[in-house]
């Protein structure tokens, strides 16, 4: 299993940006964050003591459709829970997150947008970190598809997702709590529980699965937990940015 690759701050004009490539779903996302910015006409927002989070998903090769608006809503919900919008300088200001799908197959009008969701979420998170927006925690997310025989596929390609019986997106916080659960299709609770365990193992490694040796073998194939990948990407960037300081010490 080839893990995702990401880089921080590839853009010059935006306050923070990240590019993210997931080889198994083939998605390639570029994200930017501008924060805090003045939002005109939002002075009397519903929550005056909080920051307004705006998410915009830009399609790669097709006109914008309802699918993107649906995904935007989910991302806004997740990210809104993370951002400390009451920090100094953020109240009544806006956090504008722009995510452009710059590579990979475009999602058709009737296709599920869930396969793209983890990549979009990770890009948004990395861009927020790059923009130094105060966050309460980080997270990692994954998408799993279950086919008719009950086989679970991690980060399915477009064809696998189209043939799947159900698709699940799960996100876990850095402390291991379930942050997001979006599912599509028909499934029963046992299936969901299996999916949750597998997702948790993908995001946080096998330690959370339990002492079942058999499962641990399977999960080893998933390689490094996603949480670690995200953490390392940021660590590497910080190392590079502070090279002058580290060398001097």
């Amino acid at each position, binding site marked *: 299993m080839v893990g995702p690759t990401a880089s921080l701050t590839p853009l010059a004009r935006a306050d923070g940006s990240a590019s993210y490539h997931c080889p198994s779903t083939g998605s390639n996302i570029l994200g930017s964050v501008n924060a805090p910015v003045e939002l005109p006409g939002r002075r009397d927002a519903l929550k005056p003591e909080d920051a307004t989070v705006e998410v915009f998903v830009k399609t*790669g090769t097709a006109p914008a459709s309802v699918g993107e608006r649906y995904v935007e809503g989910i991302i806004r919900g997740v990210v809104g829970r993370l951002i400390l919008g009451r920090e100094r300088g953020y109240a009544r200001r806006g956090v504008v997150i722009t995510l452009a799908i*710059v590579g990979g197959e475009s999602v058709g009008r009737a296709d599920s947008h869930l396969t793209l969701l983890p990549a979009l979420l990770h890009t948004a998170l990395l861009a927020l970190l790059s923009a130094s927006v105060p966050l309460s925690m980080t997270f990692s997310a994954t998408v799993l598809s279950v086919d008719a025989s009950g086989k679970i596929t991690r980060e399915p390609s477009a064809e696998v997702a189209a043939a799947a019986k159900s698709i699940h997106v799960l996100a876990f916080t850095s402390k291991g709590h379930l942050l997001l659960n979006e599912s599509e299709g028909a499934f029963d609770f046992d299936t969901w529980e299996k999916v949750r365990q597998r997702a948790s193992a993908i995001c946080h490694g096998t330690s959370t699965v339990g002492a079942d040796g058999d499962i641990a073998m399977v999960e080893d194939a998933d390689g490094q937990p996603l949480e670690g990948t995200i953490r390392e990407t940021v660590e590497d960037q910080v190392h590079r940015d502070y090279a002058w300081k580290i060398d001097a010490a």
Partner: protein
Amino acid sequence: MNKEAPLSIAERDFILNALREDVRLDGRAADQLRPLTVSFGEEYGHVKVQLGRTSLIVRISAEVTKPHDDRPFDGLFTIAMELTAMGSPAWDNGRQGDLETYVTNVLDRVVRHSNALDTESLCIVKGVSCWSIRADVHITDYDGNLIDAACAGIMAGLQHFRRQDAVVKEGQVIVYGLDERVPVALNITHKPLSVTFHTFDEGKKVIIDATRKEEQASEADVVIGLNNAGDVCFMSKFSGSPVDAMVFVDKTSVALEKVKEINAIIDKALQADLAKRAKSGMLEMSRAENDRELEQ
């Protein structure tokens, strides 16, 4: 908002006075482009353009649709550009500003209306089905001269793009996948590009490829679109103060030189990419020739 923060008076004067002494902020000559790099992604028609600190991504895509009723022999070609907060914090997501309307209009004129892409070759069955080609321009960093960068990106994308092969058999349209048949290149009739000039000091100083700050300090802009053969397909003086007619006459030859320069950069990048693909792609597998040892 939708407007960049204005230049301070001091900055504006500095740029202007420097230009009076024939000096630009980045040390270029008046008719010198910023370094332009064109690179291609994995998919066909995925282009990255970097012009100085302006960068953008163009993606070309094709799908089968029904042609317009009044033009049953023509395929469709659309250029979609949306300025998002990614390119510049001054742009609002989902709100169209003046710049977006202007640039989209110029691109439409230079590339689409000059028939750079032969839309008749996109017809599959008269009045029933045709290819719809779509060029999406994603601005990732904005530092002036959006028009020329986007134009170069779209033209490079159209030349790089390969659509699936479609065949009509017994009244049925069969579209072969990219791995079933060698994909088909688009039919490009000519390669028009735009060159944008900005004027300063009551039209006495004219520069090309202005950066964002130079654009803001300028009085007016002149866009000339032409192809390698020197056919002018677009000329505009959209807004700002008047420009002497001689500027148009003089600068058209400069524009031609620059168009040739940019087209050469695109061609070089295309050749390099095709050579890379030829080694590892479908083209090699679908080749009908036998490998032969050359004997002497």
